[in-house]
């Protein structure tokens, strides 16, 4: 997995809230996280999640992309409006890229697949709690796909901020290496840059993904849904 040892403040256990509609899975995540984090609550659907998260005010919410009462993005949108300090890490078995991208665009700080190992998950939670972003190889692939498909789609309205609408060559390189299974540390060594620089590249990609108003991103999602 692409997540090296975290930069969490030593000794402080991040307070974690788990949202997933499968009780079995919540229990599994809870036990995998073990004592490394402080699980302060659980919810199985959008409505209870919004209420309970507002009560608990956790550091990190582990959020399933698919929930019975609507997508995980509904939770992100609602909570970010009222509690901007709460951070979200999407955790999903779903492979549908448009759903994952939608949750990221609504404000989640990262995406990992449910097959992630316990240690990697703890690490990812720490990174999100510390304000970093977490890109799994799969998310990196989705993002590359989303941004790469855009020039080909072409035409359409010009966007307001071209800066936001494409990745720099360096950012593409970093994403490609993540998709190839490199850790941040390995990427730094490969590109002769520091781990901090890798992190800032990833955060910049995340920012572009969330802020880009280009309708092509939407169109990309729509087209994928159709194929």
């Amino acid at each position, binding site marked *: *997995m692409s997540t090296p040892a975290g930069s969490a403040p030593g000794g402080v256990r991040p307070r974690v809230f788990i949202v997933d509609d499968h009780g079995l899975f919540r229990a599994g995540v809870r036990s995998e996280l073990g004592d490394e984090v402080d699980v302060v609550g659980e919810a199985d659907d959008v409505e209870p999640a919004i209420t309970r998260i507002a009560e608990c005010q956790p550091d990190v919410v582990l959020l399933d992309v698919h929930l019975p009462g609507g997508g995980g993005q509904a939770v992100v949108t609602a909570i970010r409006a009222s509690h901007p300090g709460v951070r979200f890490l999407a955790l999903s*078995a*779903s*492979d*549908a890229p448009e759903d994952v991208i939608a949750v990221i665009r609504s404000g989640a700080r990262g995406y990992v697949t449910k*097959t992630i190992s316990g240690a990697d998950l703890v690490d990812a939670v720490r990174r999100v709690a510390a304000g970093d972003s977490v890109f799994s*190889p*799969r998310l*990196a*692939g989705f993002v*590359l*796909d989303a941004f*790469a*498909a855009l020039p*080909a789609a072409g035409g359409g309205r010009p966007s307001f901020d071209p800066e936001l609408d494409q990745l720099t060559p360096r950012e593409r390189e970093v994403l*490609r290496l993540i*998709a*190839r*299974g*490199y850790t941040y540390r390995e990427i730094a060594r490969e590109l002769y840059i520091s781990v901090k620089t890798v992190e800032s590249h990833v955060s910049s990609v995340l920012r572009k993904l969330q802020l880009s108003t280009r309708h092509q991103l939407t169109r*990309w999602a729509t*087209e*994928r849904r159709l*194929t």
Partner: protein
Amino acid sequence: MRRRSRWRRGPRGSGPLRRARDDRLAGGVAAGLANRTGFDVTVVRFAFVLAALVSGVGVAFYVLAWLLVPAAGQRANIASKAVTDRRGIALAAGLSSVLIVVLLIASVLRVGWLGTLAWPPVLISVAGMVLIWRNAPADEQATMRRLAEPLLGLPAGGSRSASRIVLRGCVAILLLCSGLITLLTGHPSHLVRPLGGVALVIAAILLMLGPWWLRIGRDLVAERQARIRAEERAEMAARVHDSVLQTLALIQRRSADPQQVVRLARAQERELRSWLFDGRAPGSLGASGLTLAAGVRLIEQEVEAQHGVAVEAITVGDCEVDENLSALLAAAREATVNAVKWSGAQVVSLFAEVEPTEVSVFVRDRGRGFDPDAVPGDRKGLAESVHARMARRGGSATIRSVRGEGTEVTLTMPRAAGERQPSRA
């Protein structure tokens, strides 16, 4: 059946004129009159038909009687109810105005047979029938529906089909005859008459055969839908059986071996996902029409199923697989299998990217690694088959490995032509 001569007048009924409820064909007017006057009902009916054919007055009289004469055992007539039926009156007025327009057009065109009809009775009949239709009590409406059914087409039951066909046949023959007469007697230089005749003949054919055609069409559609539904269900059942049920059975049998169970569950999960999200049937990826993303996914599934090591496959972009790219896929598969077999890593990353000019595949493991310059004999196969395969098609393969850190095989193949497509991975 009364066994007396039809033409002899029987005893006269007493009391006011009432429409008969038992012995009626349409409104019971004829039967009511017969009861009241003592004539046989058939004679009265015959007189009505005669009056109708001669001038149309018979029809108008019948409809008016239907409206104004109460049914037997009732006090109010239909007209008393109809005067409050605003929509019915509006409808009757509308229909009458349409008829008037038709009359005007016909008289301008001098269509003889239309001109011979007496128009006031026709207007009265049509308007009256509309009001009756809307305001008659339920039992009379049922009678009218029964009368109208064979003419309008498709009744639900088939109990009176013979009489329906006879009635329909009579009307059709009537139309056919009048159409043929119009056609044959029409002046060839005058266009409207032949056209009217053709229209009548067509109407006759439609009336006779239309319901039958409709029913055949409806049966065909219904049968086709049922067949499609059954086929879909069968296909779904077969797929679920081949994939999910088989896997569940295997998991039950191998519940003692967690590694196996995990492997089976993962393979099944991927298969189901590719079916649900991409609409690809498990194992339906033929050699033709294969895309690169599908090929990569196939490698992922097969290697996981055969070797029980997780393969994390990611594809960016997609394109059709030609000969060069199927060589690339074969090489990628070879590299993946080797990584799974020899690296000892728990996860192998497989990343494929389609770019406008080339396609690259990276196979990476974080396993034990090896020294490419001192390749052990059993790994020569990889280098040679992968290298040779790529080189033959104008591609390249590089292997980078560090002892203790892992191996990455990079494969690139130039693309012949074609556009980049969004991936389906």
